[in-house]
């Protein structure tokens, strides 16, 4: 008899364990699209300031969005933290957010917010070309100054960049290519097809290729500046350059989840993250995001890098509705290769 009781008892124990309630302290659940090493100091500062405990889990933007959509019936989180604007625009289309206009809302430029308050920007993050200095020297190349430079035979099988299925970096890149081709999809996809033989690996995360480029295992790639400068700061000999045709920058957003279980705590985090209170912390933590709030100055060395670059914002009104279709086209036409 005992055997069965043990089994049942164990089963009950398991069930009780699963149902353990959250702690009594006010808490907040979030998916962070920013890598842990940047999200954590920010969220810890918020915890200290507000007394609200933040539980978070890091995902690439595609993964995070996919989870939020899947959990729509029973949301597990309150806030989606960080990640490029196209992810948030797509989320609006999927109806997973609820509006909240933080105090900073009125001060922000139009491209740093959704008009209806569905999401608000906390930073700006331009894409860059990052190349390995030794690779360039070996091939007697300059750091690429044009998108077409990436078609040089020396780059064959030497570029790493993110996979559009999982990464917002990749989607921002694809929309940049669309933009420099005048939103002519045929032309843009033709360019991507010609660049395809250069691709060594499409990485799951946006920053996944930075280490191989730093080590020289890959020649270069297209990354967000925050990942590129971090690679450089770690001591890897890489160069950062911008194409003369221009390259996209993505506002990094934050949004309140529809049906959030802790909406008040969530709003507090959004209010804090969109204000100078958080964005002045970027420089101290060596996080090279460009602040979105007009009252926070860009850190001087970051400003110097960006000085002469031609950078254009990704238009969420265009990217949001087209994201799914463009990603699917990329998966079907570009991903498999020639």
């Amino acid at each position: 008899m005992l055997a069965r009781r043990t089994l049942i008892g164990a089963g009950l124990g398991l069930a009780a364990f699963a149902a353990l309630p959250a702690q009594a302290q006010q808490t907040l659940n979030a998916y962070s699209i920013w890598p842990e090493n940047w999200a954590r100091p920010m969220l810890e500062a918020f915890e200290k300031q507000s007394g609200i405990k933040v539980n978070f889990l890091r995902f690439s933007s595609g993964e995070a969005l996919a989870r939020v959509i899947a959990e729509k019936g029973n949301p597990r989180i309150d806030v989606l933290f960080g990640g490029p604007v196209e992810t948030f625009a797509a989320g609006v289309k999927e109806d997973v957010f609820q509006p909240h206009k933080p105090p900073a809302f009125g001060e922000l430029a139009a491209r740093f917010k959704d008009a209806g308050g569905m999401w608000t920007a906390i930073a700006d993050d331009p894409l860059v070309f990052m190349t390995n200095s030794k690779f360039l020297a070996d091939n007697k190349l300059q750091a690429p100054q044009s998108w077409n430079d990436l078609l040089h035979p020396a780059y064959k099988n030497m570029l790493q960049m993110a996979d559009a299925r999982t990464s917002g970096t990749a989607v921002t890149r694809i929309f940049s290519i669309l933009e420099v081709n005048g939103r002519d999809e045929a032309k843009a996809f033709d360019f991507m097809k010609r660049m395809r033989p250069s691709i060594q690996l499409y990485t799951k995360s946006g920053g996944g290729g930075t280490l191989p480029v730093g080590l020289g295992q890959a020649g270069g790639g297209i990354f967000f500046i925050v990942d590129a400068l971090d690679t450089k700061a770690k001591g890897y000999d890489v160069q950062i350059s911008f194409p003369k045709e221009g390259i996209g920058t993505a506002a990094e957003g934050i949004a309140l989840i529809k049906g959030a279980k802790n909406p008040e705590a969530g709003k507090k985090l959004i209010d804090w993250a969109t204000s100078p209170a958080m964005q002045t912390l970027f420089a101290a933590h060596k996080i090279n995001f460009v602040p979105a709030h007009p009252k926070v100055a860009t850190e001087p060395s970051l400003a110097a890098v960006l000085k002469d670059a031609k950078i254009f914002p990704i238009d969420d009104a265009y990217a949001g509705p087209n994201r799914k279709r463009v990603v699917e086209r990329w998966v079907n036409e570009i991903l498999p290769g020639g």
Partner: protein
Amino acid sequence: MNARPRNDPTVLATVGVLWLGVGLFVLYPLAMLLLRAFLAEGQLSQGPLFAMLGERIHRQSLLNSLILATLVGGIGTALGFVFALAATRCELSAPARGALDALAFLPLISPPFTTSIAIIFSFGPRGLITHDLLGLTGTSAYGLPTTLLSEVLTYFPLAYLTLKPVLAGIDPNLEDMAASLRAGGWRIFRTVTLPLCIPGFANAFLLLFAASLADFATPLILAGSNFPVLPTQAYLQITGLFDFKGGAVLSFVLLVPAMVVYLLQRWWVARGHYVTVTGKVGPRALSRPLPTAARIPLLAVCSALAVVIAYFYALLFYASVVKAFGADHSFTLAHYRVIFTEGLKAIRDTLIIAGIGMPLGGLFGVVVGYLVTRKRFPGRHALEMTVMLNYALPGTIVGIGYLIAFNDPPIVLTGTAAIIVACYVFRYAPTGVRATIAQLQQIDPSLEEASTGMGAGSFETFRRVTLPLVLPAFFAGLGVMFVRSLTAISATIFLISIGWTLITVRILENMTELALGPAAAFSVLVVAMVFAVTGLIALLLRRLRAPGTMALAGSMGG
């Protein structure tokens, strides 16, 4: 005194509970997965299958997966055989054999993609081996060769552990007879030893084939964009696009070769090649050692492989204690500080989940193993087969099935620890079932019959007679549960949540970001913890004076 009742109520009740669990956590998710894959607008249809296979990348992925699995199976089996020959036929000293075992054990207990880290450092245009050592240019760290290398290193120990007992178990009299007929050493090897190993080869090949077919993490990091494989594509389809249907279809495609392999393997095992391992045939001659001329190349291969493995793990350790590998090689413990502060939750969650899963899985293994070998009840074979199902299927399928089945009512478990525990129990306890069956087959049922004959109930008999006899299998089951809880990723990556995360998932996440140091530090920690716990269990087993270590190590496959 009545004879034991045919349908003992305790047995029937336990069987009922087991079927409930198995039905819920094995059959239900699989059924939901198949429904999701083949239900189009309320109708069963193979349309989605053809639609997915119509895309070139998916056909190519399937082909690549089969090529990779075949190569891993073949090369891994060959290497495993070489190791097994070295261990059994080269008259090695005990410490040398111990070193061989430890070395083979290392890849088995590491998270499956730890060698990938070292491979990225070692090969390719600036790799330590290809560039710095060999001066090669134009090489690549990505693609079939490096993925193959990583998987062979990870899985060849399965072949070694399968083939070692086979080789050791061959009755030396057979070979001696051949020798007395004046057959030469090579001829004996070719016509006696090798043929006796064939079922072992088949078993090892299939184990490795299945392991490679299920592995998605290694290709995710190493395969590159020109060698897509199916498990990775299914993973990205689901986690990236949240295309459940596409993911379900792709995993179904994976299910077919996996099932074929599983059935083939059962068939081989059923042919009974273990009969020589009974050890009940009186005093035996020692195994025939190989001639020196044959030993030298064998030991050379083993040493070379040993050096490679040692080098990879040394590199991993090194990466965990330097600031930024490849750029800043000054010593730091910062990465360990990171994993014990920021990573502490993952470590705690993993240990809690392992802690709950271990006793449940261990008990499950022993109870099922006992019932199917010792009791007669309706559906016995069906139960045994069903229990093995989650073990035989690639983890990606199991994980996706759980996600689909338990994400929506009636049974919502996603986001809990229970779903991860259930996944581990029903996926890895079957190794304990196997160990129990193997153990019980060596114990004469008359012992138990004597107990029941004297009036003890079936539970009483189980507890006082059988349980002590199957304790080694129980501990082996515990060991496997623990190792797997710390190293598995393919199924559970779909099941982590804001409340419960796992070390392996953190390692993968770290590796796909820039945080290589913490990834390496986590891996070192996992290896250390697993060594400590399995060491403890091995010690316990020795106390019980039972040859259970082999069961523990040998059941690590799948």
